[in-house]
């Protein structure tokens, strides 16, 4: 409702820390500005740098600063870029799906059924107080050739030979990341479940829904915002992840971020790296927007 001009910051202060009924907007700006200015500045800088670089050219160790679209042309016409981009999006999508699907029931359990919610939430965060690298090592122990999983299956007589499809493929990437992202998926979904007014669920029951129908028609649509938030928090950084694919992805697990990483690292071609980054961010943004719209739409379609 507030249509006051931005410059109107209320009466001049008389000094001293007193409560002044300044305009809401003024107080909102004043309080949020440290955080927004800080983030804004540190976000703007990388973007400006990236965009500038993407119009330059690298020749060995020197930068040619004549503006050119060459990088974009090269990147867009390279089938390798297409291939990696699509695979990244597909893997990130799979990771997102797996993480959210695995996390939803546990978030549901904590929000709706668990007695000691804080304890459960803490239990879920503790495993992540150890180094990521070490956790990846541990996954390789579990999934590896001689690993826990294979030993257990062999011991039970379920298999005769160690399975080698557990590690070094897309499955391993998805599993490792579904583990790594767990708290980031659980928390937003938990929050959105927590916000559901219990009388809505009772109303659905009262109108003849079985628990399953009730879940599909009320609970799920009402948690769409939480699912979308969780998905974005997982999807976007996963596309940019180059460490996990390198560690557990095997020979087929390479993603666009590995290529970007090579440009910023070994190849020392920052302009191309910047171009690829921007292209990646744009595709990710595009996919994310499509996803959000589709998610909302789908949520709205359930009746």
């Amino acid at each position, binding site marked *: 409702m507030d249509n006051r001009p931005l410059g109107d910051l209320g009466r001049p202060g008389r000094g001293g820390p007193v409560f002044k009924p300044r305009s809401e907007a003024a107080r909102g700006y004043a309080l949020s500005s440290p955080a927004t200015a800080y983030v804004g500045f540190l976000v703007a800088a990388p973007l400006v740098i990236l965009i500038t670089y993407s119009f330059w050219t690298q020749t060995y160790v020197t930068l040619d600063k004549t503006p050119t679209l060459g990088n974009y042309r090269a990147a867009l016409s390279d089938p390798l870029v297409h291939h990696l981009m699509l695979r990244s999006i597909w893997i990130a999508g799979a990771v997102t799906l797996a993480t959210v699907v695995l996390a939803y029931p546990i978030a549901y359990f904590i929000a709706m059924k668990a007695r000691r919610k804080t304890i459960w939430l803490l239990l879920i965060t503790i495993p992540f107080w150890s180094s990521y690298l070490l956790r990846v090592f541990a996954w390789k122990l579990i999934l590896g050739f001689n690993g826990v999983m294979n030993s257990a299956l062999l011991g039970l007589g379920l298999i005769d030979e160690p399975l080698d499809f557990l590690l070094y493929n897309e499955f391993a990437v998805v599993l490792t990341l579904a583990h790594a992202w767990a708290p980031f998926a659980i928390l937003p979904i938990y929050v959105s479940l927590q916000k559901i*007014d219990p*009388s*809505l669920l*009772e*109303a*659905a*029951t*009262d*109108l*003849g*829904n*079985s628990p399953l*129908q009730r879940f599909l*028609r*009320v609970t799920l*649509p*009402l948690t*769409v915002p939480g699912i979308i938030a969780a998905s974005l928090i997982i999807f976007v950084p996963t596309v940019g992840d180059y460490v996990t694919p390198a560690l557990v992805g095997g020979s087929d697990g390479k993603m666009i971020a590995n290529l970007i990483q090579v440009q910023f690292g070994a190849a020392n071609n920052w302009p191309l790296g910047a171009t690829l980054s921007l292209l990646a961010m744009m595709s990710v943004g595009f996919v994310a927007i499509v996803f959000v719209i589709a998610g909302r739409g789908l*949520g*709205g379609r*359930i*009746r």
Partner: protein
Amino acid sequence: MTEKNIIELKGVEKRYGSFLAASGIDLDLRQGEFFSLLGPSGCGKTTVLRMIAGFQEPTQGAILIDGQDMAGVPANNRPTNMVFQSYAIFPHLNVANNVAYGLRGRVPKAEIDARVTEALEMVELGGLHQRGANELSGGQRQRVALARALIMRPKVLLLDEPLSALDKKLREQMQFEMRNLQQSLGITFVMVTHDQYEAMTMSDRIGVMFDGRLEQVDTPATLYARPCNRAVASFIGEMNILPATVLEETGGMLSIEAAGFGRMRIERNVNATDRARDIIVGIRPEQLEIKADKPADYPATLKGKISNVAFYGENIHYHVAVENIDKPIAVSVPNYFHTVDFNRGDAVWLGLQVASVIDLGKERKSSQREKT
């Protein structure tokens, strides 16, 4: 309204841990009646309603709907529907989809549409099909909740304080409309409320609850005229309570000595089961006459002094302090032309028709469940 019982509660009890939220509830609701459950906050009204709806199972006793025992029947399979206090409008659905909610997948699409339109017309929301749930005012939400429940054609409609979230004007309007709707549909309505006027103006019968017990079930007029004990008497309207001593009991009449007014013979109150020498009696404020001089034509009179004047619009309440009686006696006088006019401190006389003195039985200790 017929004499057929649509709901029967037999010795129903509900415990939360060791806490008795409802106990010994025996209640028969008739087909087509408008029944209200009235009582102070926390007395167990919602608990009873939710047991009927099937959201809670009684810890003892049985609930029958239309003759069938409901034990083990989940809420979604009961022929009841509920209007929730918060309305519980599904925020992700528009008005039409909210109303159609319970029919989807059960009834052909064309029929749903027709019934939704009909239900919306019924609650005077015709044409608001596409309105979003968050774009509704309080009164509109209430109507949507009503339509959503009624479209299911329940045998019994349960309403948990359906009007308490609305402001005065709207509340009065909805009271009127809901009563009309109920009469035209002939469905049994069971409404929980803590507003005595709401209960009295809308209901065929009222059940008054205190501390988990159903104290009295009667028509509004009977409840007002013959409350069975002090709690009921003072929860509904205002009641002057006086201590009295029973002198004699003969053929449904009691000879008593009432504080201040002296000896009189009053009707024995059928609802009160325990007799005692020391009882309390009640007198409604509007059944006392207030005069500047001693009134001649009243069998019992009393002298006092105005301690307070409270203005209620239609009526004026005088509080009259009387010697040897703890609390001032309230007298209600209609506000005709604002002519009768006593002021604080004036000496006045009270006149009483003995027939209007109500036997309220023995004074009961108030339960431990009561809070400040």
